[in-house]
């Protein structure tokens, strides 16, 4: 493998303290229960090691609670590893959920600026792409209405349209591909593919085996936070299919 190393993950482990995920109140803090060191740990990921080189499209597959989302959080530097190391060379763009930074009281147009700022797009870039974004979102005159009047479909269309203006080096996607109606889905898939052509590395999380088989060069299979397989997409996906009973897994649920 001569192409440069972009993602280097070594022995990655991330845990959640079960106690912490429940309520921590002042009382339990005073009594000392809230931060108890012996609170049971839940390892969302443990001992995960893999490398990703330039030009690869990495699919991540696994059941619910397998640690796929946590892996995305770690790769995008939202969560710091509790064990091991995550090295990512290049600028990471994350599409874990659409329109998370929206302000309900502002117009679609103002929200484009706001969301773009969260994604790290400079204002002048957004200004030059504004018309393109509005056109892509198919919102028309609604763009100057506060988005609390939008339907959820309109909102995610707007979210996707802003994200589509990104020009990422490393792109991390977590099942955000099914946006809007069929026509918009087709359009957004097309846009994603062209984004992928420009990216150095793509990490794609999905439940849909056929979708991953079609797009990915490599695959990573997680189960209960542990790495079950990593390698060429076809091989790993075949293993996964065999292990999961070969059923046509059309689980529509989003990962945790």
């Amino acid at each position, binding site marked *: 493998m001569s192409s440069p190393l972009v993602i280097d993950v070594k022995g990655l482990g991330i845990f959640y303290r079960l106690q912490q995920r429940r309520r*921590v109140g002042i009382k339990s*803090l005073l009594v000392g229960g*809230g931060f108890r060191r012996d609170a049971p740990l839940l390892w969302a990921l443990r001992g995960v090691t893999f490398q990703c080189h330039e030009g690869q499209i990495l699919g991540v597959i696994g059941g619910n609670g397998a640690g796929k989302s946590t892996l995305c959080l770690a790769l995008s530097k939202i969560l710091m590893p509790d064990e091991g190391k995550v090295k990512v060379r290049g600028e990471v763009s994350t599409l874990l959920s659409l329109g998370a930074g929206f302000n309900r009281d502002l117009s679609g147009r103002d929200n484009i600026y*706001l969301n773009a700022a*969260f994604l790290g797009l400079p204002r002048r870039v957004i200004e030059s792409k504004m018309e393109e974004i509005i056109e892509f979102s198919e919102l028309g005159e609604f763009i100057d209405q506060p988005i609390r009047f939008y339907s959820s479909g309109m909102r995610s269309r707007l979210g996707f349209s802003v994200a589509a203006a990104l020009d990422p080096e490393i792109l991390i996607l977590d099942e955000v591909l099914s946006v809007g109606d069929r026509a918009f889905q087709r359009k957004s898939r097309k846009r994603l593919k062209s984004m992928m052509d420009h990216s150095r590395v793509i990490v794609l999380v999905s439940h849909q085996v056929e979708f991953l088989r079609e797009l990915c060069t490599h695959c990573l299979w997680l189960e209960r936070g542990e790495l079950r397989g990593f390698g060429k997409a076809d091989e790993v996906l075949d293993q996964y299919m065999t292990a999961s009973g070969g059923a046509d897994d059309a689980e529509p649920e989003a990962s945790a």
Partner: protein
Amino acid sequence: MISNWSNLVARRDLVRELTLAELRSQSQETRLGWLFWLVDPLIMMLIYWGVVVGIFGRGEQYTPYPVFILCAMLPWKHFTGSVNASAKILRGRDALIKAIPFPTIVLPLTIVLAGFSNFLFGTIVLLGTAVAFDRPLGMSLLQIPVLMFLQLAVVCGISLGVACFGALVRDLSGFLGHLTRIGFYLSPVLYGVDMVQDRFLQGPLGKLPFAEWIPTLYMLNPFAILFTGYRDAVFYGRMLEPYYWAVLTVEAALLLFGGWRLYQYFDRRVIKFL
């Protein structure tokens, strides 16, 4: 993305957009729009004026009382507004924090900055009221920008700390209302610091043990100094004592540094609690 200085500088666009968005959504929610930022302090001032002077018949030594109360009420409102919002901000924006990598410190910071812009509108009301009541406005006004800067540091520092604890301790925001209420009465908002000095140095309270220390301790409260500073600048038209400048500067620096370090410590750890 960790909340360090270089990431914050790199994402200054985000700080600006988020502050503007906050202000825009405030002004678009109300019929008066940004005019509300002028009307709001006026109404509050009228209420306290009516209650303290009109009903209780107090504050004659602080005439004109509207100028006197605005000097303290405006910075106090900046503080309580920022702290209350900061306590909830990380929990409130958890979906965002877990979806997009950005230095989360911008969230409490923009709250403080948006509140500060409201405060700036309030100072227009303050200066207008001072002119209306014929206050001796002169060179002493030059202290205001420095006081504002120190106020920003104090409010930032405390808000950053509160933002961390608000994320860790869910019930904090419930208690915060009471804590700030206690702070309100312990700080010279409705009365002047001279009253504290009088009570503990001469009055019946002067017989308490260590009574002579109480005014000094009282003046360690950065807000006591801030309010005194604004009153010296606008109400009395004199300079704040150098001792108070020194204490306030040290406290502002310590609070800002402490809040900043605390936030950096909890920065990524806090996400697992959300």
